C-alpha cells in the first residue's frame, strides 16, 4: 500500500490526519503510510498541527521536556480547562514535585491493595448482566474505571451519572462542539472545587485524596486551585481511557475465539496479552507538546510555538521497533509501547489501569468461554459494544 501510493495520496492522508472519532476508523493504514512516507508532517485538522509518528522521535521528544513543553496544553483540540491540569500540563521541576505527591499511591505495589475491591466490583457488574445481547461497553467497560476512581479517591457513588456525562462531553462532543466541551469542563471544575472544599457529602479521606488535600510542593501547601487541577486530571485520565482499553480488548477477543480459549487455558497469559492489545489499540492515540526552542529532526525544523502531536498509535506500529507491527501477537516478547506515554509525563495511573484491565479480563473470560460480536462496532472509543455471551455451565457454577 505504502509503496504504491502517490505523493498526492500521502499528502492528503497527512493533511486529514485526525486522532479523534471517525478519524481513527482507518488509523492502522494511515499510520503505515505516514510512518513509511511522511514520518513528521502537517495535519490541517483543528487549526493545524505537526504530527510525529516514529517511535524513536516520539520517545526523544517526550524525554526532551526542555525543548518540547507540556505547559501550554497536551490536547489538540484543547480540553478547555481554564487552568493547566496538574501535573501533566506543567514542566519539571514543578511537574516532578506534583508527581512525587501522587506516585506513592499509584505504584504497582500501592495499587495492589485495591485488587479485592476491583474484583468485587467486576463480579458485581457481571452478575447484573441481563438478557442477550449485552452492551459490554455501557454495562462493564465504562463502570469499572468509574467505580475504581471513586473508590480510590473517596468520592460518593451517587455522582456516577454526572461522571459519564462529563466524560462524554469533554472527550467526545468537544471535538465537534467546543461550547459543550467548555461548559462540561467548567462543571467538572466546579464539582472538584466543592470536593476539595469538603462541600460534597459522602467523601472519604483515602490515602490518595489525603495526599492531594494535605500535599505541599516547594515548601508550601497546595492551593485549592492546584488540588482541583490535580483532581481534574485524575478524573479525565483515569476513567475514559481505561474503559476504552477494556472495550477494545473485548471487541478484539470477541472476533478471536481461539485466543479466548488460549487465554482461558492459562490466565497468566493475560497481562502480556493486555500489553499487546494496548500497543495495538492505545486509548490515547496522541498527546501534544509545544516547541520552545528551535530544533531539527528528520529535516523538519521545529519552531517555537509549534504544536506537535506525538502519535502514540503510530509509534506503536513502527516496524523499526516491532516485528510485523500490524499483526496482533499476544505472545509478543518485545512490547515497548507508548500507550501510557513515555518520559516525565508517563501516565500516573498506568499501574492502576493495568490492574483493572487484568482483573476485568480474568473475570470476564472465566465466566464466558465464548462471546461474539452481535453487530458491527468500531474498535475505538466507548460507544456501545453489543456482544452475544455464552456462559459455561462449569464457569458459572
Amino acid at each position, binding site marked *: 500500500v505504502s509503496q504504491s501510493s502517490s505523493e498526492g495520496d500521502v499528502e492528503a492522508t497527512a493533511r486529514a490526519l485526525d486522532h479523534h472519532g471517525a478519524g481513527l476508523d482507518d488509523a492502522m493504514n494511515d499510520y503505515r503510510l505516514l510512518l513509511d512516507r511522511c514520518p513528521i508532517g502537517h495535519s490541517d485538522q483543528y487549526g493545524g498541527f505537526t504530527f510525529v509518528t516514529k517511535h524513536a522521535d516520539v520517545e526523544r521528544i517526550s*524525554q526532551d521536556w526542555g525543548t518540547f513543553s507540556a505547559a501550554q496544553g497536551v490536547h489538540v483540540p484543547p480540553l478547555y480547562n481554564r487552568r493547566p491540569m496538574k501535573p501533566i500540563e506543567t514542566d519539571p521541576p514543578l511537574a516532578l514535585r506534583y508527581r512525587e505527591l501522587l506516585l506513592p499511591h499509584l505504584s*504497582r505495589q500501592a495499587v495492589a491493595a485495591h485488587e479485592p475491591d476491583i474484583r468485587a466490583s467486576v463480579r458485581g457488574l457481571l452478575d447484573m448482566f441481563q438478557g442477550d445481547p449485552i452492551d459490554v461497553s455501557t454495562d462493564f467497560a465504562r463502570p469499572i474505571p468509574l467505580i475504581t476512581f471513586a473508590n480510590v479517591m473517596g468520592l460518593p457513588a451517587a455522582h456516577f451519572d454526572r461522571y459519564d456525562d462529563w466524560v462524554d462531553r469533554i472527550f467526545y462532543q468537544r471535538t465537534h462542539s467546543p461550547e459543550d466541551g467548555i461548559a462540561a469542563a467548567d462543571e467538572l471544575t466546579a464539582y472538584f472545587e466543592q470536593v476539595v472544599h469538603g462541600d460534597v457529602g459522602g467523601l472519604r479521606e483515602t490515602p490518595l485524596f489525603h495526599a492531594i488535600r494535605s500535599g505541599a510542593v516547594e515548601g508550601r501547601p497546595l492551593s485549592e486551585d492546584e488540588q482541583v487541577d490535580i483532581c481534574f486530571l485524575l478524573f479525565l485520565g483515569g476513567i475514559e481511557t481505561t474503559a476504552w482499553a477494556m472495550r477494545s480488548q473485548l471487541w478484539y477477543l470477541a472476533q478471536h475465539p481461539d485466543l479466548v480459549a488460549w487465554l482461558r487455558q492459562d490466565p497468566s497469559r493475560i497481562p502480556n496479552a493486555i500489553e499487546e492489545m494496548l500497543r495495538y489499540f492505545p486509548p490515547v492515540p496522541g498527546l501534544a507538546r509545544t516547541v520552545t526552542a528551535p530544533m531539527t529532526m528528520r529535516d523538519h525544523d521545529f519552531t517555537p510555538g509549534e504544536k506537535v502531536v506525538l502519535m502514540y498509535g503510530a509509534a506503536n506500529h513502527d516496524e523499526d521497533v516491532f516485528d510485523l507491527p500490524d499483526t496482533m501477537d499476544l505472545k509478543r516478547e518485545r*512490547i515497548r509501547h507508548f500507550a501510557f506515554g513515555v518520559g516525565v509525563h508517563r501516565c500516573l495511573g498506568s499501574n492502576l489501569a493495568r490492574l483493572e484491565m487484568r482483573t476485568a479480563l480474568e473475570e470476564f473470560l472465566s465466566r464466558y468461554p465464548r462471546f461474539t460480536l452481535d453487530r458491527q462496532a468500531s474498535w475505538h472509543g466507548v460507544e456501545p459494544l453489543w456482544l452475544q455471551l455464552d456462559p459455561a455451565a462449569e464457569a458459572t457454577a
Partner: protein
Amino acid sequence: MRAIVDQASCQGHNRCVEICPEVFVIDDLGFATAISSDVPPHLVPLVVKAAENCPERAISTTDPLAEATGNRGAHDDHES
C-alpha cells in the same frame, strides 16, 4: 550478568517489576532498582525481557565475560 536501572531515566512504569520481580524492586515512589548481585542464570531471559520492554530504555545489563577481561561496559538492551 548484572542488571542496572538508570535512575535518571526510570519513570516508574513498573514493567520490569511485573516481568521479573526477583531482580527488580521498586521504592516508595515506584521507581525501580535492580539487585546488586549477579542475576541467577534462570532469570537472565526475564531480565532481558524486562530491558526490552522498558519504555524509557532505562535498563542495561553487564556482560560477565567483558567484566572478567576488564572490558566492562553497560550494554544497551538486546533490541534486534
